[in-house]
């Protein structure tokens, strides 16, 4: 009786086990000794459970014509990721080491790049053209938003930066306070006007107007709208989309 029961148990156990690769992962070493433990890395599938894929063969013939484009792209990506930062982070030990090496006459690559950059900077600052901010055609100076002559002169130093920041803050705060004062006068005038209305009209005036704002109110932009430009763009877009559909 005991043997029959044992058999049944064994059969149920075997039927429940699926032979999937993850079941064959060796989680721990079996032997009681420390020998051989180094070779077992946790969670690695055993070699006999690997299924060889056929994907490697199909990608080979298509690699060659794409090769140049991918390599250009890869090159650009690598350049971006390795882009040089103008200031290197050096610990004090490293600074001391570099200074000593320079005395001996050995200059590292990064130090050489730094020296080149300093030379370039000097030549640029001597030429002295104002730096252009933003896209060349649409920046604020060429558009006439700022008078280039009235900009105060400054060097790129900390004291000048602080002075400019103080003036900036002063100007903006003055404007802000003026605007707040003007808005509160507006509100006061409105309240006085409502008070001055006769009784029958006052009730109607006090009802808040909750109809939604018009959605097509024009928002002020950098340059004025060009007549007919919008229709031209729409025409071009429609034509190009129609051509694609006919194909």
């Amino acid at each position, binding site marked *: 009786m005991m043997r029959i029961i044992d058999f049944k148990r064994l059969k149920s156990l075997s039927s429940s086990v699926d032979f999937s690769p993850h079941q064959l992962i060796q989680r721990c070493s079996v032997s009681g000794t420390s020998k051989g433990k180094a070779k077992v890395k946790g969670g690695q599938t055993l070699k006999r459970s690997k299924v060889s894929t056929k994907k490697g063969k199909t990608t080979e013939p298509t690699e060659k014509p794409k090769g140049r484009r991918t390599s250009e792209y890869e090159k650009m990506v690598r350049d971006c990721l390795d882009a040089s930062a103008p200031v290197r982070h050096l610990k004090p030990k490293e600074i001391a080491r570099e200074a000593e090496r320079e005395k001996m006459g050995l200059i590292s690559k990064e130090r050489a790049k730094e020296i080149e950059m300093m030379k370039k900077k000097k030549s640029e600052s001597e030429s002295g053209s104002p730096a252009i901010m933003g896209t060349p055609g649409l920046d604020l100076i060429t558009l006439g938003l700022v008078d280039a002559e009235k900009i105060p002169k400054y060097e790129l130093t900390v004291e000048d930066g602080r002075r400019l920041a103080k003036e900036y803050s002063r100007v903006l705060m003055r404007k802000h306070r003026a605007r707040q004062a003007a808005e509160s006068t507006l509100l006061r005038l409105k309240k006085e006007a409502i*008070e001055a209305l006769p009784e029958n009209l006052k009730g109607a005036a006090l009802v808040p107007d909750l109809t939604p704002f018009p959605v097509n109110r024009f928002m002020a932009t950098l340059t004025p709208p060009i007549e007919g430009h919008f229709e031209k763009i729409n025409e071009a877009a429609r034509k190009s989309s129609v051509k694609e559909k006919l194909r």
Partner: protein
Amino acid sequence: MQRSATTLSRSLMATRGFCTSNSDKIVASVLFERLPVVIPKIDPVVYAFQEFSFRWGQQYRRQYPDDFLKKSDARGKGDYQIDYVPAPRVTEADKNNDRRSLQRALDRRLYLLLYSNAFGAPDGKPVWHFPEKVYESEETLRKCAECALQSVIGDLSHTYFVGNAPMGHMVMQPTEKVQDLQPLKRFFFKSQVIATNKFNIEKCDDFVWVTKDELLEYFPEQADFLNKMIIS
């Protein structure tokens, strides 16, 4: 709250005199404004600071390769008409000082003024005034103002009246110098131009679209009131 109410009532008593509100003529006038089309000029100090902070930060920024930065200039197949020459901010109407066109001071607000025989003015002489209408028995004063604007412009599809309440009032008492008819109360309603460039202004001899400074020239006596009511 109580203090403000008492001061208000005191000021009202001072201006009104006796409460003869029934015999006063009430006029609803409209301040019709066109909002700025272009952003206003930037103070050079503000620009200097922005430029300084940009250049200071630029010193510490990584330099990415140029062809990566030029990728944004690449144009797709169908985009051949996206690049454009920006229109000038100072238009022809600015150079000709053509006050009737709406294309004049694009970075400021423009207000409409009419020149005709207005209500509260001495008879027979056309004066510069805002579009207005005497209040008869309509429902609200805002509807009266809408009628006033409609009679001048034609239809109200391109206007937006801001709120039900007036934004200011003017009390005109008859003086010895000017022969006014009766004491007059003028309530101003604010409305804005929506989505047009031109208007057909009828029923008046002349009309102008003026900025705030020019507006103060047209009304020398009421200059400080208008200064308070109109911000820019």
